[in-house]
């Protein structure tokens, strides 16, 4: 069975989704979703281990070998991203039980868990497939399930924000499929490895190079829309704000991360670093956007009064950090981006989950409603502080590790502006995190109806992520080793 592990990683959650929908009962559906997410987590751990020792795993679906059939190609980066997604899903599904019960109508629980499983399946599929059209299919699976999960939010605005995301996401997906189509026209293949071989030849021949350039443009715009790079981020704040708490926590930590992975795949594995950065001058467009994203979105976050919205804008800013790292085009820069991908998943997941706990108890996440919560919900707010410290980049947290690598990359590249922006961005994170902490710890509540601490079923998953964000902040070697070797293999693929 173990040789089928790459397929099982994707098809076990996929198979469990219709079963959960057919059973259509809240409790059993949750058990099914939990087993699916934890199976995926176990499989991802195994795969990462195997990839680190034995190198890339190639799996041909249906026994059809690659250019004809679809193959899964799992290298270090893919295994690392599947690990992030499945780990967050495994923690998130435990959190979902209580949170979903309080925020979503009972008769929709089974559907929610089915959509959740499909989303996990789609994101894992994007990460491990080696076929660009298969990427598009999994992208649609994950996006459609995400839209429906967001639409389940309590607030009626959840519907409009899900619709907004649907429109923007579909535009992005259309651009991606147009790009894939143009590449197929020029090369006659959909396999990533095949494309990587044929594109340079077509580009060099000068016959059809314009089509390749247009395909590249479509893919860039499409993927950056999906990953919410400023100024294509407009769908994200509303979607994160009005989605059910469990969905926000899970999605903020996974879906944009997988899109960034996709960006890396297309730029480095399919087109190659030389084409992307020397011919197409990708850094010239990505770097300014990333810098503006960090500064503008952090300052927008400062002025938000809804904490989920605040964190959503902060997410857009953090995506700026990841793209900034990638835009250096150097091994350390790309590694910094990958490290931050993992680290941000941990800290933002923890922060959103802490907000879910607040939502569970007081039914609101507006800053002015959080007065005195430091006293009445000490563990929840302590988790928020823990995640917040990472956000700011205090030493001993994962946030510090990311920023350390980013600064190193900026300084090595001689880009002092980027280095300054990274530091200024951290200071701005301090401002918006402090805003919440100040109200929660230093303001007194006006009325004294007692507020209880959030139940353990919410606190344990939240604290798992907080603890992980400290663990990997202190023991940074594991993540940075994987990220460095992934970055080396991405950049080395060209030579």
């Amino acid at each position: 069975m173990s040789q089928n592990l790459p397929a099982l990683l994707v098809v076990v959650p996929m198979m469990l989704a219709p079963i959960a929908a057919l059973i259509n009962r809240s409790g059993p559906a949750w058990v099914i979703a939990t087993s699916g997410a934890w199976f995926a987590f176990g499989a991802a751990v195994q795969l990462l281990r195997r990839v680190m020792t034995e190198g890339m795993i190639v799996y041909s679906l249906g026994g059809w070998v690659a250019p004809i059939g679809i193959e899964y190609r799992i290298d270090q980066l893919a295994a690392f991203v599947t690990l992030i997604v499945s780990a967050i899903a495994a923690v998130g599904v435990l959190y979902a039980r209580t949170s979903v019960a309080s925020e979503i109508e009972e008769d929709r629980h089974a559907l929610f868990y089915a959509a959740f499983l499909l989303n996990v399946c789609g994101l894992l599929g994007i990460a491990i497939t080696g076929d660009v059209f298969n990427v598009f299919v999994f992208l649609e699976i994950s996006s459609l399930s995400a839209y429906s999960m967001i639409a389940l939010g309590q607030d009626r605005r959840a519907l409009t924000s899900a619709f907004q995301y649907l429109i923007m996401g579909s535009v992005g997906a259309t651009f991606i499929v147009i790009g894939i189509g143009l590449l197929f026209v020029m090369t006659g293949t959909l396999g990533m490895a095949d494309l990587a071989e044929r594109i340079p030849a077509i580009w060099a021949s000068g016959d059809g190079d314009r089509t390749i350039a247009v395909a590249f443009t479509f893919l860039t715009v499409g993927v950056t829309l999906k990953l919410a790079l400023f100024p294509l981020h407009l769908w994200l704040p509303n979607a994160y704000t009005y989605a059910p708490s469990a969905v926000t926590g899970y999605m903020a930590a996974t879906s944009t991360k997988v899109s960034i992975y996709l960006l890396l795949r297309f730029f480095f594995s399919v087109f190659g670093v030389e084409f992307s950065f020397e011919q197409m001058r990708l850094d010239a467009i990505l770097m300014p956007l990333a810098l503006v994203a960090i500064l503008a979105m952090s300052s927008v976050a400062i002025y938000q009064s809804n904490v989920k919205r605040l964190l959503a804008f902060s997410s857009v800013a953090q995506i700026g950090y990841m793209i900034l790292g990638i835009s250096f085009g150097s091994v350390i820069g790309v590694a910094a981006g990958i490290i931050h991908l993992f680290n941000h998943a941990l800290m933002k997941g923890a922060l959103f989950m802490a907000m879910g706990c607040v939502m569970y108890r007081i039914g609101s996440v507006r800053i002015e409603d959080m007065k005195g919560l430091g006293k009445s919900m000490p563990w929840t707010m302590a988790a928020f502080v823990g995640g917040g410290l990472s956000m700011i980049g205090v030493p001993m947290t994962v946030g510090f590790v990311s920023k350390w690598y980013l600064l190193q990359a900026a300084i090595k590249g001689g880009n002092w502006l980027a280095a300054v922006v990274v530091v200024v961005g951290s200071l701005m994170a301090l401002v918006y995190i402090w805003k919440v902490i100040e109200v929660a710890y230093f303001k007194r509540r006006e009325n004294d109806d007692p507020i209880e601490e959030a139940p353990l079923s919410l606190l344990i998953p939240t604290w798992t992520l907080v603890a992980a964000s400290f663990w990997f902040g202190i023991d940074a070697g594991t993540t940075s080793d994987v990220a460095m070797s992934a970055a080396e293999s991405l950049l080395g693929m060209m030579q």
Partner: protein
Amino acid sequence: MDDRVILRVGTKVLSPFILLFALYVQFHGDYGPGGGFQAGVIFAAVFVLYALVFGLERAMEVMPAKVAYACGALGVALYLGVGYLSMFRGGEFLNYSYLFDPEHDPTHGQHYGIIGVELGVLVTVFGVMVALFYAFAGRRRIDT
């Protein structure tokens, strides 16, 4: 209702042929992929036609929303089930050559495998199409 005899009789006469045509599309070119989606749409078209002529309530008696909804999930399970079966028999996921015993001609496995998968597509597409139509026609949630 009574003054639309031609419509009613026409629908009754046509329905079995449309269903048959859907199956024809399904089985035509059975060795290759494709066809399940179109067959599912045609299959669903019968129930849409029935609902248009006889009204939504009667259509829901013939094909309850619950059943249509379950079909949507069952088809996916059937598709994946074929994949699992080939995996349990020692091949890769969806490698139909392993569906039968080794002494069997592997091409038979390929024939039945693709038919099974396409049947899954048919069932899902049919279920989802009917459920979508009910949702739009009823303008309210489908109670399952």
